[in-house]
């Protein structure tokens, strides 16, 4: 009777031990995968947000159209109207030579000296603010070229240098994130591969028995593949949670900075499409890792 109870207790603790051991092991794996995937995901979000922020600031990039000196107020107004109707611009502001001179006097402090000029040397100017839909330097460049084709325009100028540089940097960063992603994806495959390898080895007796009663390799592989797939997907979900947490911690400071620039820019998370891709990638990597690990070890686990 006592030995019977003892056996029961043994089974009980054995089962309990298995339950307690397995979840912790898989939680650890999931945590490692989460951190591994969170890194490229976070960097990707950073780049996307900087890109969006630079676009928001592109709004500040104005195009100055210096018109030919013989263009009078009416002609300038007509041109301004044409531009507003035909092209993707937000606003067009006209500064007549008179206004320009007045402003120059006020700002330069050369007031009296300039009074001695017999005629106004300043050209009429249109200040064009591109529409927000023009979100790349390329599109802005195209707009400038089209503005230049107007006969009234003498010179069209857009200071794009800093925008171009930023976009160039972002391009490099994006490529860097890609390379990082590839190597970290490899890391995920190896992590899961190793976990599954240990799982396979710890169940070698079971695998041998299954082979002896006619189980195919596919049958033996299946639970391991599911384990890898689930761990990968769970790791990806946890990575998303991690990134979201970081983002929510940064939301306050980012909002404060954006307010300083009178911008309503707010950092954005992955979005449901992005989450789906992340989880899908995690699942595929997990599946791949376990497929490789099981494939490598199944052959060596023939019954003896």
């Amino acid at each position, binding site marked *: 009777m006592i030995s019977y109870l003892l056996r029961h207790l043994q*089974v009980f603790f*054995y089962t309990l031990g298995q339950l307690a051991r397995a979840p912790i092991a898989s939680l650890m794996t999931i945590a490692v995968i989460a951190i591994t995937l969170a890194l490229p995901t976070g960097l990707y979000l950073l780049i996307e947000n900087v890109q969006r922020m630079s676009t928001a600031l592109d709004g500040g990039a104005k195009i100055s159209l210096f018109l030919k000196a013989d263009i009078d107020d009416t002609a300038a107004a007509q041109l301004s109207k044409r531009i507003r109707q035909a092209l993707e611009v937000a606003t067009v502001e006209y500064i007549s030579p008179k206004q320009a001179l007045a402003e120059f006097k006020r700002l330069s402090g050369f007031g009296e000296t300039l009074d001695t000029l017999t005629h106004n040397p300043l050209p009429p100017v249109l200040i064009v603010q591109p529409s927000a839909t023009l979100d790349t330097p390329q599109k802005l460049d195209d707009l400038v070229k089209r503005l230049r084709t107007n006969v009234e325009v003498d010179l069209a100028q857009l200071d794009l240098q800093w925008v171009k540089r930023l976009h160039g940097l972002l391009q490099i960063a994006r490529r860097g994130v890609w390379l990082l992603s590839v190597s970290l994806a490899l890391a995920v495959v190896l992590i899961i591969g190793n976990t599954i390898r240990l799982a396979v080895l710890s169940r070698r*007796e079971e695998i041998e028995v*299954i*082979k*002896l*009663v*006619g189980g195919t390799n596919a*049958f033996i592989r299946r639970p391991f593949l599911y384990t890898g797939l689930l761990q990968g997907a769970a790791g990806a979900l946890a990575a998303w949670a991690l990134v979201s947490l970081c983002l929510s911690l940064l939301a306050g400071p980012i909002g404060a900075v954006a307010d300083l620039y009178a911008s309503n820019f707010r950092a954005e998370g992955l979005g449901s499409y992005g989450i789906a891709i992340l989880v899908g990638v995690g699942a595929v990597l997990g599946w791949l890792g376990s497929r490789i690990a099981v494939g490598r070890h199944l052959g060596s686990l023939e019954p003896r």
Partner: protein
Amino acid sequence: MIQFNNVSKRYPGGLDALKNVSFELAPAEMAFLTGHSGAGKSTLLKLITLIERPTRGQAIVNNQNLSRVTRRRIPYFRRDIGIVFQDYKLLHDRTAYDNVALPLVVAGVRDKDIGRRVRAALDKVGLLKKERAYPIMLSGGEQQRVGIARAVVNKPPILLADEPTGNLDQALSDEIMDLFHDFNQVGVTVLIATHDHRQVQRLGKHVLELKHGEMINDGSPRSIS
């Protein structure tokens, strides 16, 4: 049902475990495989189940030439052979029921059929009441009967056993051997490797005796030394 023609097996390392072994078992025949320790009994059974491959010679099992059974086909080939081991080879984290169900599960049998067939097999070995028990809660004889139920649950035409009573006392051995005899009575071809001459004499079946890898006797129990 099982036919060996001049089969030899040399293990890597150069040891000849079987030398030019020939014998034949007719369908529904029952035979004992005897011989000293290291004579090659387990090796012969491993060749039949394709755990090992013959080095030379031809073996035909269940109408299939073993040299033609590819690696991919081995699982399907094994589903027609029930195997019983001296150390039972039960899975200790599964109940008796789940252990017996394993061959059906791997063969993709439907759940409702599994229940019926597992209970029929457990009933046959007299363990219907222990279906929820884990192997650790069963005696050696009971564990071996679970092993036998697992071997016969998908009604294979061939049943092999490697020293199935090696760890059991006389009374339990008798029970186990009688079970094999019962399966033989309903048409299963049975081959049992054993040291136990008492059982060989008691059941009076066809005897194959190996000595240092050679088949030195193929006949009735009386011919055995």
